[in-house]
């Protein structure tokens, strides 16, 4: 399956940079999976982004460093695409003091204030009004920053979604609401959970710009749609759009039946729509000399993730002082 659907392709360096980010995310996530199987990452929550890389990478490439990103608990890919160092991210998975959240947040609560990456939130829909509030601060302060809020398809059916989107429309807040529709809220298919499974159509109900449904496995298409959405949000107000995507792992690592239950569907998505394979093919077609560069990026991703694991495993655990620190601003 081609990508970009005839749209103008970004230059080779841009495509290679997206490739770099996507293979880094895939490598990071699959390593997390293996580490969990080996009990080197513990706990009960680990929600992997494998399969959805084009959404995070394509979308975040459309915003500036001064803009803001916020997401739910499937947050590793967004953190990496926002430029957060894999070492402190891996350390957070392992509950180490050198983790981005000091080992107190875990996989679901990654954040990096300096990257304007506001987290990593674990209550479905809970971060949506936070996104509205962060956008309100920008508007209130007279800046034109925008907030890119990643929204799981599952959260489109709880009250937070309705209240936050409506508020953003009433106040014309600069938010891009990007639904990552991976078809399943835990195990329930979107067709069984939504009266209107074309989730972007909800925009009509709020009187906001409908950015449509885009192919979330096509990084170029995602980026193009987000460029438009961000420009609209920056000037005029909120936008809702939907990227159709697919996750290769279960809802979380504790979802052990996923690969059995959805074997055929999963294999089809992997074989025909994999976002990394598609970007690679696109690069080779447009720039036939790209294969060595891509191979080098794949190797660099493996090296980087290995270094991150080493950094994390060699870091100390938090101690009793850390346990009681930062409940309040003292």
């Amino acid at each position, binding site marked *: 399956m081609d990508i970009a659907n005839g749209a103008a392709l970004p230059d080779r360096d841009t495509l290679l940079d997206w490739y770099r980010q996507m293979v880094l995310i895939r490598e990071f996530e699959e390593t997390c999976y293996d580490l969990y199987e080996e009990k080197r990452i513990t706990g009960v929550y680990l929600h992997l982004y494998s399969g959805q890389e084009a959404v995070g990478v394509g979308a975040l490439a459309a915003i500036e460093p001064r803009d803001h990103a916020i997401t739910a608990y499937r947050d590793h890919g967004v953190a990496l695409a926002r430029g957060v160092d894999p070492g402190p991210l891996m350390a957070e998975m392992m509950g180490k003091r050198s983790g*981005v*959240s*000091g*080992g*107190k*947040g875990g996989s679901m*609560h990654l*954040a*990096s*204030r300096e990257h304007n990456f*506001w*987290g*990593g*939130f674990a*209550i479905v829909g*809970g971060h*949506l*009004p*936070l*996104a*509205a*509030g*962060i*956008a*309100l*601060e*920008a508007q*209130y*302060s007279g800046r034109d920053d925008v907030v890119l809020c990643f929204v799981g398809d599952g959260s489109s059916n709880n*009250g*937070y979604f309705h*209240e*936050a989107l*409506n*508020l953003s429309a*009433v*106040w014309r807040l600069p938010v891009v609401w990007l639904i990552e529709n991976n078809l399943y809220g835990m195990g329930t298919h979107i067709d069984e959970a939504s009266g209107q499974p074309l989730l972007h159509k909800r925009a009509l109900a709020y009187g906001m710009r409908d950015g449509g449904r885009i192919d979330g496995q096509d990084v170029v298409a995602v980026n193009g749609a987000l460029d438009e959405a961000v420009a609209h949000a920056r000037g005029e107000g909120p936008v809702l759009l939907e990227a159709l995507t697919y996750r290769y792992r279960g809802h979380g690592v504790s979802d052990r039946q996923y690969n059995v239950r959805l074997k055929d569907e999963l294999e089809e998505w992997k074989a025909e729509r994999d976002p990394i394979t598609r970007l690679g093919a696109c690069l080779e077609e447009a720039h036939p000399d790209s294969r060595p560069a891509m191979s080098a990026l794949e190797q660099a991703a493996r090296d980087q993730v290995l270094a991150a694991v080493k950094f994390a495993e060699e870091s100390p655990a938090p101690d009793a002082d*850390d346990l009681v*620190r*930062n*409940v*309040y*601003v003292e």
Partner: protein
Amino acid sequence: MAARNQPMREALRKALREEMLRDERVFVMGEEVGKWQGTHRITRGLYEEFGDRRVRDTPISEMAICGAAVGAAMAGLRPVAEMMTINFAFLALDAIVNHAAKIRYMFDGQFSVPLVFRAASGWGDQATASHSHAPEPIFAHFPGLYVAAPATPGDAYGMLKTAIRDENPVLFSESIALYPKPGPVPDDEDHLVPVGKGTIRREGADVTLVAWARGVEWSLQAAGQLEREGVNCEVVDMRWLRPLDMDLVYDSFRKTNRCVIVEESLPMYSFGSEIAAGIQENMFDHMDAPVKRVSAMDLPLPYARDIELMALPDADKVVAAVKEIV
């Protein structure tokens, strides 16, 4: 210090207005806070003075009001979000408890959440079960949040200023029944009541009455009545349900060796339970009598006036409880 006699409602409005003048980052948001002038008139005149950027009417969306306040606070503003009544804060419990209270800890100090959730609280005139709560202890259950509950106009003024200036999230409970009651309000724009500090409303040597908000009023009435019968009560107004000024309770208890806890809220897993547990753990050698509690009855509140009042604490019930232990 010079002071003016004002109802609590006016003291709160004065504090809000002065803090908005003092700090551009402070703004008000909530249902009917602007053009309507506030359901309880706390924000009266602010919309006209500050405009719709800083006095923001919202849809009836408690989750979004509280959640957007959290986001705005993380990003550097100082929101004062109004819950028309504290009963509606139940709709936003997740935004308050899982987000406002925990974000600083969860991200190990990367963010602070300097905001105030103001909420009108307490049972009203036949407001019925779902609109008749004093649920402050529920919020005080959670570390990461402060809970304020002033009993006087002067404290309402100073505590709201403290809450707005503090770097932490504060659930600020305002007793609807106390809104119209007057008291001295200091003429001092920097009058602050420190977080977590209670105060002695009345000194006495025989029994310690520990209360907050309306409970203070019932305790003072009871103390006046008991004085005529030769029982001298000390009235401790906790003012903050979190942090809880147990040292103040213990200092009083060392003197009186007896305690009655007075609360408008329900008895199970309550303010009273907490204070009583603290006393038995730490003051066992000073105890001359069981610790008594006066609370609302363990019921949803009914409509009919004849039975509504039976379910609630009052000064007579405080007097009766004191008499059981002296």
